[in-house]
């Protein structure tokens, strides 16, 4: 069998098959379930390694399957998809370990891990999608498999939050579907080609293309939590911590941002989008979301809600990066896709640790938590500083490139103030938390101490994942220039997009 | 009968037919409506005779007016009190009195419009030259069909598949009736005069059924008319309060009920095995096969129509026709 055609399918299947098997496992078989999960994750990591090496050397991996005449399911590995696949695979491995620790005695674990693996398969499938049709299929599948995860706890709030999440995402999915069908009718099957394919269409179609662009961006914007469409994200925080960590920091939210990057670069082509005057609109929407998210985060006492609003603003940096014409801005946007993922997942892990170990849900309860759980709080601090953009953590790198890109593209007039205000706001809602955690005296007793302080401050499976991801965030910042680092890979993508 | 006389006859006949139909539907007393409907059916049979359709006239008289009338009268007789409108009224059509005039006018206009368009379409169809392709084809192939009566040829040879399905329809309706409950209680024994009439009438009916069956090959008649006459004999016996009305019991009853369809199917399939098309009788054997099928069909038509009149499986048979339906046991969750 030719390896090139089967590798992308294997990457998707490596989490799909264990997921389907886990569904039918009875609740009791922990070891088998854990083994299947970890085996799937490691196998995927190995396959992705091969993928990275192959794509770096201009090797083409593509598998096709026709669903109907003119409608093909295409999995094609190019530089941009590999970046997102690597991010998802690494973080999935870490989150699986974390989830095994987090759900120690919880019910319905077979169902949880089944849908968990399906969700990662959908994300990886979405990343590897070769044309807009396949992207839409995996986009809707992602909605379908994340609904049970958000509603996992079964409490009335969880079901209500899941229903709101569903209403938003299915509505967005319908807009995306209509836009894709319309584009399909105008321009035939739209494959993702670096530099975009729509510039060749006759000028008469331009008004229609503008409406289609609006539909696509609104459809994707729901998942990327652009301002008017972000309502579901804070509601979906009722989900268990590993779900919020992987889904709302990496899979779901990133899928929306990744979709915007795909549409702008590989369907319309960034120059053609600018020629249609759509880039500035996208930029303004992103800017509004950045500021709005940060402002709203200020007022949240619940730690996870604050992180949720911070996600809303941080994801729009990626949209801002795409809106900045020029390779440097693009690098800034794309590299932030990875950096934000690593930093935000650390924050959600640590929030999960606080809740699981000490029963802390509100920031007001975090006085002196640094003394009780030093390692977790250290990880929290690294990630928080990264979010603010303090070197050497990864966040600084992407903000630096965004600023540089704005200067180079002459859009500094309104991009720089946005970057500065949002960084200040980030500091405003993260630094007090750090101060309260490190320098305040702890209260008489923790709200609900589940796990006593034995050799480590909490169970191993809960402690090591945030520490690993914090070091990754640090490494991404320090060794940004190293080969195969996220920044290097983003530069490679930008060069191929702009054909340098 | 010169053309003027015919015209008068037609006019009179059609006027009374439409009059009876209107009267039967205008009255609110169901019993009166049913009786008028039976009269309407009989006049209709005369109309078919007038239009040179003797086979259909026989069937209309025996089945359309006769048996349908008997079924309807039995239903009216059993109806305890006027059906309270609440029971089966549709949310759209409340009891006749409460239906506002608007709805009546709308429905009347709607039906008039339907009749108008139907007439308009028909006149257009009649104006074009009558297509005689099919009658000519039947005339040519009549010799090979094994019977000389064209209607029987169409029913049992050219369009035999239709008749097979039609017998299946009859079987389905009886199975549906069986699943709805036991047969109706019988009637009290007949007085001497009625008993005498029955003693004379039933043998004549049976003889006529046999004749109709046989004559169907070359003159108006056939399985349906014969079956209906046989069923009529059974109905008369039932009305006379007789316990035994000639229906077999249990397994035998089921054999008779399915005789028509199974013989038809067996003949069709064996012909298929012999390399002929399905239901493609070899000309030499056609006559005999048609008679065989018609006999079986007559028996099952008579049995099914009689069981329909009885309203279910006669009690005395072995099958446990429980008095009221035992509810499905549904296990609790």
């Amino acid at each position, binding site marked *: 069998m030719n390896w090139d055609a089967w590798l992308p399918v294997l990457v998707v299947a490596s989490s799909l098959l264990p997921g389907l098997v886990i569904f039918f496992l*009875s609740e009791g078989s922990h070891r088998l379930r854990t083994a299947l999960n970890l085996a799937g994750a490691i196998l995927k990591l190995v396959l992705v390694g091969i993928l990275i090496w192959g794509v770096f050397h201009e090797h083409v991996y593509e598998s096709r399957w026709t669903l109907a005449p003119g409608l093909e399911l295409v999995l094609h590995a190019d530089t941009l998809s590999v970046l997102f696949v690597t991010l998802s695979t690494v973080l999935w491995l870490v989150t699986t370990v974390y989830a095994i620790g987090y759900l120690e005695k919880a019910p319905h674990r077979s169902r949880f891990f089944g849908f968990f693996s399906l969700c990662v398969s959908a994300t990886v499938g979405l990343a590897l999608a070769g044309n807009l049709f396949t992207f839409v299929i995996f986009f809707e599948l992602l909605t379908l498999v994340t609904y049970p995860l958000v509603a996992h706890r079964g409490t009335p709030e969880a079901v209500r939050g899941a229903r709101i999440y569903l209403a938003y995402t299915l509505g967005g999915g319908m807009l995306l579907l209509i836009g894709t069908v319309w584009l399909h009718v105008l321009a035939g099957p739209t494959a993702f080609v670096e530099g975009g394919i729509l510039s060749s269409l006759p000028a008469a179609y331009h008004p229609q293309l503008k409406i289609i662009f609006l539909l696509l961006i609104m459809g994707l914007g729901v998942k990327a939590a652009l301002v008017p469409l972000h309502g579901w994200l804070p509601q979906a925080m009722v989900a268990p911590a590993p779900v919020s960590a992987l889904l709302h920091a990496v899979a779901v939210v990133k899928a929306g941002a990744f979709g915007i990057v795909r549409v702008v670069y590989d369907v319309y082509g960034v120059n053609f989008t600018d020629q249609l005057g759509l880039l500035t609109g996208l930029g303004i929407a992103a800017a509004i979301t950045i500021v709005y998210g940060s402002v709203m985060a200020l007022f949240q006492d619940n730690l996870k809600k604050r992180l949720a609003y911070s996600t809303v603003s941080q994801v729009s940096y990626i949209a801002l990066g795409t809106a900045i014409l020029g390779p440097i801005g693009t690098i800034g946007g794309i590299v932030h896709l990875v950096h934000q993922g690593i930093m935000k997942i650390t924050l959600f892990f640590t929030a999960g640790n606080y809740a699981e170990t000490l029963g802390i849900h509100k920031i007001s309860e975090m006085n002196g938590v640094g003394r009780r759980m030093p390692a977790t709080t250290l990880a929290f601090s690294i990630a928080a500083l990264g979010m603010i953009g303090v070197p050497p953590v990864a966040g600084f790198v992407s903000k630096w490139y965004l600023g540089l890109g704005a200067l180079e593209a002459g859009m500094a007039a309104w991009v720089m103030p946005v970057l500065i205000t949002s960084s200040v706001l980030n500091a405003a809602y993260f630094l007090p938390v750090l101060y309260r955690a490190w320098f305040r005296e702890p209260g008489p007793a923790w709200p609900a101490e589940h796990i006593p302080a034995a050799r480590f401050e909490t169970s191993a499976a809960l402690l090591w994942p945030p520490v690993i991801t914090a070091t990754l965030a640090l490494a991404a910042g320090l060794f940004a220039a190293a080969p195969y680092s996220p920044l290097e890979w983003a530069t490679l993508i930008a060069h191929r997009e702009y054909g340098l | 009968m010169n053309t003027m006389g015919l015209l008068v006859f037609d006019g009179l006949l059609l006027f009374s037919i439409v009059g009876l139909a209107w009267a039967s539907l205008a009255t609110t007393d169901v019993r009166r409506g049913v009786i008028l409907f039976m009269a309407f059916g009989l006049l209709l049979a005369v109309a078919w005779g007038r239009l040179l359709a003797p086979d259909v006239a026989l069937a209309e008289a025996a089945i359309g007016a006769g048996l349908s009338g008997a079924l309807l009268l039995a239903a009216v007789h059993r109806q305890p009190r006027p059906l309270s409108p609440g*029971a089966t009224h549709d949310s759209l059509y409340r009891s006749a009195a409460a239906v506002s005039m608007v709805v009546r006018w709308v429905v009347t206009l709607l039906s008039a419009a339907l009749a108008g368009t139907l007439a308009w379409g028909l006149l257009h169809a009649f104006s074009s030259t009558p297509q005689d392709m099919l009658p000519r084809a039947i005339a040519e192939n009549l010799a090979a069909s094994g019977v000389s009566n064209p209607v029987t040829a169409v029913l049992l040879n050219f369009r035999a598949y239709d008749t097979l399905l039609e017998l299946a*329809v009859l079987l389905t309706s009886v199975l549906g009736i069986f699943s709805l409950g036991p047969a109706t209680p019988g009637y009290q024994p007949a007085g001497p005069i009625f008993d005498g009439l029955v003693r004379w009438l039933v043998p004549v009916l049976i003889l006529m059924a046999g004749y109709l069956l046989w004559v169907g090959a070359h003159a108006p008649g056939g399985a349906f008319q014969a079956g209906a006459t046989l069923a009529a004999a059974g109905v008369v016996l039932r009305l006379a309060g007789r316990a035994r009305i000639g229906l077999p019991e249990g397994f035998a009853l089921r054999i008779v009920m399915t005789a028509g369809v199974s013989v038809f199917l067996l003949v069709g399939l064996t012909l298929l095995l012999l390399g002929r098309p399905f239901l493609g009788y070899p000309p030499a054997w056609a006559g005999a096969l048609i008679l065989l099928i018609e006999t079986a069909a007559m028996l099952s038509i008579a049995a099914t129509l009689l069981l329909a009149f009885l309203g279910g499986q006669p009690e005395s048979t072995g099958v446990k026709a429980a008095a009221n339906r035992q509810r499905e046991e*549904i296990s609790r969750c």
Partner: protein
Amino acid sequence: MTDAMIGLIALPLAGALATLLLPRSATAVAIGTGLATTVAAGLLLSGVATQGALHYEIGGWSAGLGIALRADGLSALLLMMTALVALAASVYASAYFNTASERARFWPLWLLLWTALNALLLSGDLFNLYVTLELLGLSAVALASLSGRRAAVAAALRYLLVGLLGSMMFLAGVSLLYAGYGTLDLAALSHMVAPGPSAWTALALMTTGLLLKTALFPLHFWLPPAHASAPAPVSAVLSALVVKAAFYLVLRLWLDVFATVVTPAAANLLGLLGAGAVLWGSWHALQAERLKLLAAYSTVAQLGYLFLFFPLLLALPSGPARDLAAGGLVMLALTHGFAKAGLFLAIGVIQQRCGHDTIRQLDGTAQRLPATTFAIALAGVALIGLPPSGAFLGKWQLLAGAVETGQWLWLVVTAVGSLLAAAYIFKVLGHAFGHRPYPNQPVTVAREEWPALLLAGMAALVLGLSGAPMWKLLELGI
């Protein structure tokens, strides 16, 4: 291959007679006949795929004089779906009815219904279609009133009266056509029929009659009570197959026989009625208190989508675009067949296990019957039209056709309809998440839950992913 056609009619009919004559071994005979009929359907499908449209003259008489059976791409696919759905429902029914007398009464009527469906899909003669429609109507009514409860009998009675009205109108249309063109054979008629008063009236009458039987929007009042009160396997087949057979006839008449007579205005009227059905059906499904009513209203809505295709098929010039839209229509019809049958069977499991199917009190059941809930979820995915399901491809073609012909109303209606469908499906699925622990074994009643799971899986996964060869098959049909 033509023997497969005869087999498709003779086998279930012989099965019906056998189950009537041998009530004790009725279940075994019925399942055996079902398997044989499914094999025959498979043979026919492969025959049509290799040799193109098949044609068989019963009795050897040439078309017009005798009755011709026809099987093209469309009818072969519908026959295959009918066989699979009916077989799965038969396996389900063998476990659903627990008293011997019920089973003895159920099987003959069930196989007669199956005969009627096969005969209707194969028939190429107008009057023969009338007889098959009557056989279908009567057997469906007899099955619907099987439980003997008051609600079921009243609904079945109304269903019968509406069905009779529809058949009479259909017959009036047939008599008009016979008066005008002197033949009853569909193929001959499609060449002879020319626009004119008799053709328009005949089309109008026959279509009204069939719309009564398909329960299209204004004429749908009889469907929800009838389908909701019938036993589970019966309502599965009623919703998935019986109404669809009547739709198949409307399709056959409008696109084959009356192709030259049909005007875009008439097609738009059908489209509008379909749009009304989508919105009305989805809205009432959302308000439904009981699962079976929800599924019945969902049938009314899903049939509305199928009628939305008519204005598109009329407006698109015949060519690849039209074939794609026709393929989308058939894919949507097939997927709805499988999904709705799976949904009704799953609801039957819940109703039997709990004695009720009111949605509000579903919490306990949904968690204790994970396989059933999973079947409802899969069927729901197919009913909404979310990806891996065939309905996604069907709705894609519907949207593409709407965009291409610039008829934006259908696009908006489809979008709103799908979102409403998502609302009422997930209203049900919301109850599947609770804190009660799962039973160790996911499948509790194997013989009832596996058919539901397989049917729903067929709709949600198999049709969506392996639907490509179906389009090639359809070039032969519409």
